[in-house]
C-alpha cells in the first residue's frame, strides 16, 4: 500500500464509518464484548485507546525509517506498551476514582489488535500528520463503537443511562451478560452493512 491520498477529514470520517474498527474491521472484539456493560466504561476505555492510538501512530510514523523491517512488530509492541504505561500513570495520578474501575483494562490496551494493525497498515507507510488524523479517526471510531454498544446494553440490561435510572425496571437482564455483547455487535454490524448497501445502490442509480 502506497502513501495515502485521502484528505485529513476523509481519514477521520473513514475511521468512524467506512473503516470502523469494531463494526467494519471486526478488530478488538474482546473489549467490545467484555467491557461494554455501561456507557461510562466504554467512554473511559475509548478515550484511553484514542490517546494510545494517536501517540503510537505519530511515533511510528516519525521513526519509520529507523525501524528495522525484521523487528518491526516488537518495536510496535514496545511503542504501544510505552504509551499505555504513560496513560496508565497519568490516569492513576489525576483521575484516581475512574482509574479504580478501568485500571485493570487500561493495561490490556497493549494487546488490542486495532492499534498494532493500524501501525502495520498505515502509520509505517505515511507521514506523521496523516497518521495523526488516521489515529484520531480510528480512536474516535472505536470510542463510538464502545459507547453505542454500551448505550444499548446499559439501557436494555439494567434500565439505566450513565448510571441514572431512566426506565425504572430492567427490560432484559440478558444484556448485562458478556454473551449479549456478541448480539449487540452482530446487530450493529448488520446495520452498518445495510447502510452501505443502500448507500451504494443510491450512488449507482444516481450515476
Amino acid at each position, binding site marked *: 500500500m502506497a502513501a495515502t491520498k485521502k484528505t485529513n477529514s476523509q481519514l477521520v470520517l473513514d475511521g468512524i464509518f467506512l473503516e470502523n474498527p469494531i463494526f467494519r474491521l471486526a478488530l478488538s472484539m474482546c473489549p467490545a464484548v467484555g467491557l461494554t456493560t455501561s456507557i461510562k466504561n466504554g467512554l473511559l476505555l475509548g478515550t484511553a485507546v484514542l490517546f494510545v492510538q494517536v501517540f503510537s501512530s505519530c511515533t511510528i510514523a516519525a521513526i519509520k525509517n529507523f525501524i528495522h523491517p525484521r523487528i518491526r512488530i516488537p518495536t510496535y509492541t*514496545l511503542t504501544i506498551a510505552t504509551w499505555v504505561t504513560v496513560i496508565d500513570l497519568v490516569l492513576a495520578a489525576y483521575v*484516581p476514582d475512574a482509574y479504580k474501575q478501568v485500571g485493570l483494562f487500561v493495561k490490556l490496551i497493549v494487546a488490542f489488535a486495532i492499534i498494532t494493525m493500524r501501525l502495520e497498515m498505515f502509520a509505517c507507510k505515511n507521514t506523521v500528520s496523516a497518521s495523526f488524523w488516521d489515529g484520531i479517526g480510528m480512536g474516535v471510531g472505536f470510542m463510538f463503537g464502545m459507547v453505542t454498544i454500551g448505550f444499548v446494553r446499559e439501557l436494555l440490561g439494567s434500565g439505566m443511562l450513565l448510571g441514572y435510572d431512566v426506565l425504572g425496571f430492567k427490560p432484559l437482564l440478558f444484556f448485562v451478560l458478556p454473551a449479549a455483547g456478541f448480539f449487540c455487535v452482530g446487530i450493529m454490524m448488520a446495520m452498518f452493512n445495510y447502510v452501505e448497501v443502500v448507500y451504494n445502490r443510491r450512488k449507482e442509480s444516481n450515476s
Partner: protein
Amino acid sequence: MNEFVKITFRLTLSCLMAALVMGTAFIFTDKAKKNNEHVNVHTTMLSLLGYSDLNPAPKELKLYSLYRYIIEEKGTTYLGYMVPVTESGKESYELLKLNLEGKLVQRLPMNISPEAAAEDVERATAMKEALKTEQGISYQDRTVIARLGGQRVAYLLPGKFGGFKTFINVILSLNPEFAIRGLEIMEHEEDPGLGAEISQNYFKNQFRNKSFERLKSLDVIKEPLPDEYRAYLNAPDKMDKDKADAIIKQYGEKDIYALTGSTISSRSVTDGVKNMVKRFAYRIQVLNDVIADQKIPALI
C-alpha cells in the same frame, strides 16, 4: 553479522527511548499519586472516626502523628519515638530515646514542623541531624492519635501483616481503652472471590466493638455467619438502635466467623490485628509513663 549488530543496536535504542518516556511520565505523575494516597489515607482515617462529607469532623479534632524508629548504636538497640510537642504555642517534635527496658536514655529536640514530618525524606533528614549520624536508624511505623478537646478519643494504626500471598495493609482504629472501633483494609492481593472478601463489610466489621480483653483470646471459627448478624455487619449504622443493640449483645463477644474457603486469609487478618493491638498497647503504655515521668509537653 552486520544485520545482527544493526538489529541489536536499533532495538536497544528503542528500548532506551521508551524508558526515557516512561521515566519522565513517572517523575511528573509521582507527586500527584503520592498526594492522592495521602488524601486517601486521611479520608479513611476520618471515616474510621465516624466522620464523612455528610458529617464533617469538628474543628477541635486534631490528629497528631507519632513515629517510631529503631536506633542501633554501638551494638545496643534503642527505641526512638518522634513525639509531637508544643513549645510556647509552636508545634514541633522531640525525639525520645528509650532503652529496651523502657527507660528514657536521652531527650533530643528536633526542629521540624508537623507538615514536614509527614514527608519521609524531610523526617529522615531531621532524624539524621538530631542523632548526628545516619547509621542504624530504621523507621518502623506511624501512629495517629486523635484528640478532641484535649482528650484522646482514638488511636489510628496504619500497619501491615502477612496475608495468604503477600502483605495486607490496614488501618486500625482503637479507642483509648484499646477496644477496636473499626478496621479498614487498604491494600491486599488476596484471591478475588475468596480471600479478597476480607475487605467486605461483613468480614471487617466483625472486629468492631471487640474489647482489649476479648481480643487477647480472639479466634477464628468455621461456622456459617448468621443472617441477622450479616445484615447488621453490612450496614451497622443504618440499622435502628434497639435492634442493633440486641445483635451486638448476642454476637458481640463471638469469635471471628471465617470466610468460606479462605480460612488462611481470615486467620491472618485476625492474628495480624491481634498482634498489632497487643504490641501497640504495650508500647504506648511505656511511652505514656515516660512522658508523664519527665513532664514532656507532649501533644499526644
